[in-house]
C-alpha cells in the first residue's frame, strides 16, 4: 500500500488491528511519517468542521421551515386581539394601547406542549390534549386538578400559558411570578411570556424587567426577538 493510502486508511480506521499497530509504531520511529499523518489529520478535521457547519445550518433551516406553520394561528391571535379591542368599543383605549398591544400580538405565539410525554398514562394526559387542541378553558380546569395532586412548577407554567391564551393576563402573571424562583425547566420561557403578558397589560417597564431577567438566565433564548423588543421598548 502506498504511504498516502496507508495514512488515509489509518486515519479513517479502516485498517486491521495489526496494521493499525504497525502504523502507530512507524509514527514513533519515523518523524517524517508522523508529520505526514499529523498533516493529514489536520486537513481531515478542518474539512469535517466545515462540513459540520453546513449540516448544522441545514438542520436549523429545517426547524425554521417548520415555524411558519404556526402563522395561521398567529394571524388569528392578531385578529382576535383587534376584534376584542373593537368589541370594547373604546377608541381611546385602542389608540393608547396600540403600540404595546401590537408588540404583544406580533411576538406572542402559544408555547407548544413539550412536557406531555412525561405524564402520559396519568390523568394529566387530558390536560395537555385540551391544551394542544386550543381548548384552554378545559385545559385550565384539568391543570388545576393535576396541581391538587402534585405541586409542579412545570405544570404551573402550562396553567399560566392556558390563562394567557384565554386573555386572563393577570392570572397568568401571578402564576408566572410564582415559578420564577423554582427549578422549572421553563425558566427562560417563564420570563419571556411574563414580558409579553406585561406588554398586554400596558406595563412596558415590567416587560423590560422580565426581558432583562430572561437575558440573565439564558441569553440565547429568543435572542433576536428579545433584543428587537428591548430596542422598541427603550
Amino acid at each position: 500500500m502506498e504511504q498516502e493510502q496507508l495514512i488515509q486508511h489509518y486515519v479513517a480506521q479502516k485498517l486491521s488491528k495489526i496494521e493499525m499497530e504497525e502504523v502507530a509504531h512507524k509514527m514513533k520511529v519515523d518523524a517524517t511519517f508522523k508529520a505526514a499523518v499529523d498533516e493529514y489529520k489536520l486537513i481531515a478535521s478542518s474539512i469535517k468542521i466545515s462540513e459540520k457547519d453546513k449540516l448544522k445550518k441545514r438542520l436549523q433551516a429545517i426547524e425554521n421551515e417548520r415555524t411558519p406553520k404556526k402563522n395561521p394561528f398567529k394571524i388569528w391571535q392578531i385578529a382576535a386581539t383587534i376584534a376584542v379591542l373593537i368589541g370594547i368599543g373604546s377608541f381611546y383605549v385602542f389608540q393608547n394601547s396600540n403600540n404595546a398591544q401590537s408588540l404583544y400580538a406580533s411576538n406572542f405565539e402559544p408555547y407548544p406542549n413539550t412536557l406531555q410525554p412525561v405524564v402520559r398514562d396519568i390523568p394529566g394526559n387530558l390536560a395537555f390534549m385540551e391544551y394542544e387542541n386550543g381548548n384552554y378553558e378545559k385545559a385550565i380546569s384539568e391543570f388545576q386538578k393535576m396541581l391538587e395532586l402534585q405541586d409542579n412548577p412545570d405544570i404551573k407554567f402550562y396553567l399560566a400559558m392556558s390563562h394567557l391564551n384565554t386573555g386572563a393576563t393577570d392570572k397568568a402573571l401571578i402564576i408566572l411570578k410564582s415559578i420564577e424562583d423554582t427549578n422549572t425547566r421553563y425558566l427562560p420561557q417563564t420570563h419571556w411570556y411574563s414580558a409579553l403578558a406585561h406588554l398586554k397589560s400596558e406595563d412596558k417597564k415590567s416587560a423590560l424587567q422580565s426581558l432583562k431577567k430572561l437575558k440573565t438566565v439564558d441569553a440565547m433564548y429568543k435572542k433576536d426577538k428579545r433584543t428587537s423588543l428591548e430596542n422598541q421598548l427603550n
Partner: protein
Amino acid sequence: MTNTSLQQRLRDEDPTAFEEVYKDNQEAFFNYALKFNLDKDTVLDVYQDATIALYQNFVSKQLVIENGTLRTYLFAIGKYKMYNILKKRKKVILKDAPEKVADFEIEVDNSPSEQQKQLAINFKNMSPSCQDILKMYYYRNLTIKEIVALTHYKDENTVKSHKSRCLKGLRQLINSPK
C-alpha cells in the same frame, strides 16, 4: 432491510438520508431527553449535533452498525453530550454517570484549535472543484480509484495532480507561522 439500505445511503453521503434520520428520531429523542431536565433549545442543539456526529461517522468511517439499531447509537451520542453539559453545569450526580456510552466508541468533541478553524474557513473559500476533490479524499476517505469511478476525471493521475494543486493552498496556511 430498510435499515440496511438507510445505512448504505448514509455511508454514501446522501443528504436525504441524513434528513430522514433527523426527522424520524426527533420526537423519540425529545422524550428520551426529558429525564435530563434540560431546556428545549439545549436538547434541540444536542440532538442536531448528535445527528451530525452520527452522519459524519457513517460518511468518514463507513460505519456499519451490526449490534444495536441506528437509533440506539444516535441516542448514545446524545446521552453522552447531555452528560457533558450537565457535568459542566455541575448538576450531574455521579451515580447516574453513563455506564455504557463507551459501547459505541463515541468520539470526544475537542474544541477545534485556532489552526483548524482558520483552515476550515480557508477550505470554504476554495473553488467548488477543489472542495469536492479534497472532501472526497479527506472527508469521505475515498481512494483515488474510487474518486475516478465517481467523477468525470479521466484517470488516477489527473485526480492526483488536481488534488495536489488544491492541497497546495491549504498547505501554505498550515506551514505559515502562527
